[in-house]
């Protein structure tokens, strides 16, 4: 089936929905999503969304921008960070005006709380900047935006899984998608396409990410010759539920929670004397791994799968029920632990991709590191890299990113489609997506996909995790490459057309393999420690050689890298102490 829409948005998380609201005001817009919109992983975001409202204490967008740059270990594009910090204030009011039920101060204003790395006056002390709706902030954002889309009659194609994009040189003419219900292939001709497909934490075994977070958008584009930026920077959130990876929000520490080792020591005193448990995530994740390797984890076995305690027992049952009810529910449900009474066992969990599809501040996808762009191709949200998060994202800054840059991309698309035409459509639209499916069908008696998946996740977690070294990553690359070869032989075991979730899982696995391959390659390439990328063989930041973004390309099945300059307009890199 062939459809024609001026603008097509892929993904219905916070970024996709916000873009849809804007684009649909002026352009005929369709939103495609492999999940029902309200099932998107934005709904899992817990702790908050930052904006310098100054509702409970003095705050300024400039401080927010600075914290973002410093938190990102100076790999942040500073103009973009300024836009983020300045626009976030109005963006949060916009959400509130559209009904988002934020928690309130006694005066009736939006309440704000502390979060890691957010400070007053350029690093002096923690500041209360995170606006929150209990620990369901993402759920409320997703709901509010979806409700607004209903109000504004946005057209949705639910459970459509994108398998290919139509690119003619540097112009985008539409996309190709597989409909889950029928198994049919649909072509969407379009003048502008936005990728808002979210993160890809599922390449790791311990992750806070949903099953659906498989990086379909970035992987697809990578295979089409579009470069991806800064893949080596993957954030490990310090507090995932032990053994499961389910996130325990930083909001717990924002409210006063403390990390403790085997001896009950508040070990963050040794690593970040000023901000303690509210230091940025990369530092805390490393501190935990450090404690563990010294045998100070709770088990004390020095394995990377050991854990520490997150102690919230002193906060009192009331604060926990008022401000952290979900956390309390998770820990009771999955661990049988009431956090008001006993500490929560936690370990670092793969959480957030700082890297992704390179864009400018209006969501336009970059074609190289020199300032040229694709026409009609956009990206926003976690799958994109603006880059406002640099080498390490601060908590609450992703939700800001979604609404600030999702909106800007939507506005830009609406503008673009008015002056432009549909691409002269190729007589034979690309077969690659379809071909992939056909091939899976042809294979006979291939290897079990589950073996490939679990090997991939194991190697990424153990060898390209919180700490990385040359030898380990070499090993990971060799294994992943082998797994990619194995994947080519995998066979489709369920050949029904309608509702073939097995087929979708296979496609997702292919995407994870390519992205993991590029991620490990970039991580091996960057010979320094910066933000979330911590090398035990190169433990220092090296501004002389590495103050640059990485662009990764996939050609003939092999990765190569080039550089993209960092935009440093205001704050020169300084040592990063907290």
């Amino acid at each position: 089936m062939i459809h024609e829409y001026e603008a097509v948005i892929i993904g219905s998380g916070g970024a996709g929905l916000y873009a849809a609201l804007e684009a649909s005001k002026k352009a005929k817009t369709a939103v495609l999503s492999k999940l029902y919109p309200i099932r998107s992983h934005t709904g899992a975001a817990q702790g908050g969304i930052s904006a310098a409202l100054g509702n409970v204490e003095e705050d300024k967008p400039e401080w927010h921008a600075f914290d973002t740059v410093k938190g990102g270990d100076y790999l942040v594009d500073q103009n973009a960070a300024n836009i983020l910090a300045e626009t976030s204030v109005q963006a949060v009011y916009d959400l509130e005006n559209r009904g988002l039920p934020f928690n309130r101060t006694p005066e009736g204003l939006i309440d704000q709380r502390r979060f890691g790395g957010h400070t007053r006056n350029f690093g002096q002390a923690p500041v209360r900047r995170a606006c929150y709706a209990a620990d369901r902030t993402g759920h409320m954002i997703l709901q509010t935006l979806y409700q607004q889309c209903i109000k504004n009659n946005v057209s949705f194609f639910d459970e459509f899984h994108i398998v290919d994009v139509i690119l003619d040189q540097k112009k985008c003419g539409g996309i190709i998608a597989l409909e889950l219900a029928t198994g049919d292939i649909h072509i969407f001709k379009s003048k502008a396409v936005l990728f808002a497909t979210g993160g890809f934490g599922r390449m790791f075994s311990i992750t806070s990410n949903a099953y659906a977070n498989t990086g379909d958008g970035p992987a697809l584009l990578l295979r089409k010759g579009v470069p991806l930026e800064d893949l080596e920077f993957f954030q490990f959130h310090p507090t995932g539920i032990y053994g499961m990876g389910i996130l325990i929000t930083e909001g717990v520490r924002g409210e006063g929670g403390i990390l403790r080792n085997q001896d009950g020591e508040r070990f963050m005193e040794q690593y970040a004397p000023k901000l303690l448990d509210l230091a940025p995530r990369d530092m805390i994740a490393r501190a935990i791994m450090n404690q563990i390797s010294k045998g100070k984890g709770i088990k004390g076995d020095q394995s990377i799968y050991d854990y520490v305690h997150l102690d919230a027992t002193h906060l009192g049952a009331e604060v926990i029920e008022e401000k952290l009810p979900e956390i309390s529910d998770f820990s009771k449900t999955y661990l049988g632990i009431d956090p008001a009474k006993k500490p929560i066992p936690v370990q670092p969990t793969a959480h957030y991709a700082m890297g992704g599809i390179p864009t400018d501040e209006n969501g336009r996808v970059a074609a190289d590191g020199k300032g040229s762009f694709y026409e009609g191709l956009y990206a926003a949200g976690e799958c994109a890299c603006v880059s406002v998060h640099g080498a390490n994202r601060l908590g609450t800054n992703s939700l800001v990113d979604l609404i600030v840059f999702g909106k800007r991309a939507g506005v830009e698309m609406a503008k673009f489609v008015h002056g432009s035409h549909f691409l002269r459509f190729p007589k034979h639209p690309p077969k690659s997506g379809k071909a992939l499916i056909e091939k899976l069908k042809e294979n006979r008696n291939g290897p079990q996909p589950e073996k490939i998946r679990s090997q991939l996740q194991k190697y990424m977690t153990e060898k390209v995790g919180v700490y990385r070294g040359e030898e380990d990553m070499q090993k990971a690359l060799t294994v992943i490459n082998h797994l990619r070869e194995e994947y080519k032989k995998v066979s489709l075991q369920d050949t029904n057309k309608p509702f073939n979730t097995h087929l979708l899982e296979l496609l997702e696995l292919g995407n994870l393999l390519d992205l993991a391959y590029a991620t490990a390659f970039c991580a091996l390439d960057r010979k320094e420690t910066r933000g979330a990328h911590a090398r035990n063989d190169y433990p220092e930041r090296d501004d002389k050689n590495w103050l640059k973004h990485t662009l990764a390309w996939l050609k003939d099945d092999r990765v190569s890298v080039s550089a993209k300059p960092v935009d440093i307009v205001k704050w020169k890199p300084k040592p990063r102490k907290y």
Partner: protein
Amino acid sequence: MKITIEIKRFNPEKEKKSYYQKYKVDADPNDRLLDILMVIKRRIDPSLSFRKSCGHGVCGSDAMVINGKEGLACKTLVKKVADKEGAYIRIEPLRTLPVQRDLMVDQKKFFKNYRKVKPFFINEKEVSEKERMQSPQERKKIDQATKCILCVSCYSACPVIQKENPMYIGPASIVQAARFIDDSRDNGFDQRLPELDSPDGVWSCKNYFFCTQVCPRDIQVTKIINMTKKKIKDFNN
């Protein structure tokens, strides 16, 4: 421990009738039921079909009928439904909606009902300050209802929809309506009234309380429905 999972299967493309299929699996009492389903799908039978995403009870994808009662597979630990070696767990698709394949049901009707109550913020007055003011007490009034993840459990469990009035808009829609009606900032009550104050609206509810019992978000669904009834009565008087 070894347990048996018995799953109701149906592929309308190929089969005339549904049937139960048994899988013997190794399970840890602390596993999520979703973990077990994933093991079956990924290691034993790739054709088994169900939805899932977040894996921790916040996205609403994997509601199903577990041992006769609606619940989220990812929020149900094995030990809650199987207490000993050799235990059986029976899993069936949600009720009241057509089965698409195995544990997947067609949610169109559910979302159509949801849309009927105008589930969005209504207040066309320009905001003079930056945010619309709301006290913590006013905010608290809507806390319960805002937790709904539209998982369809309540709709499936409702005896009214099952046996008496399939056109009833259902518990979740009323919860969603109440989320706005009870919001001190919203003034769309009259716009929502026609759907709510009708035989297929709140008056269909007979207080069976099944919705409240199955809601994985611990929302007091029936109470919210009754409060909405009262609001409508007060308004009409």
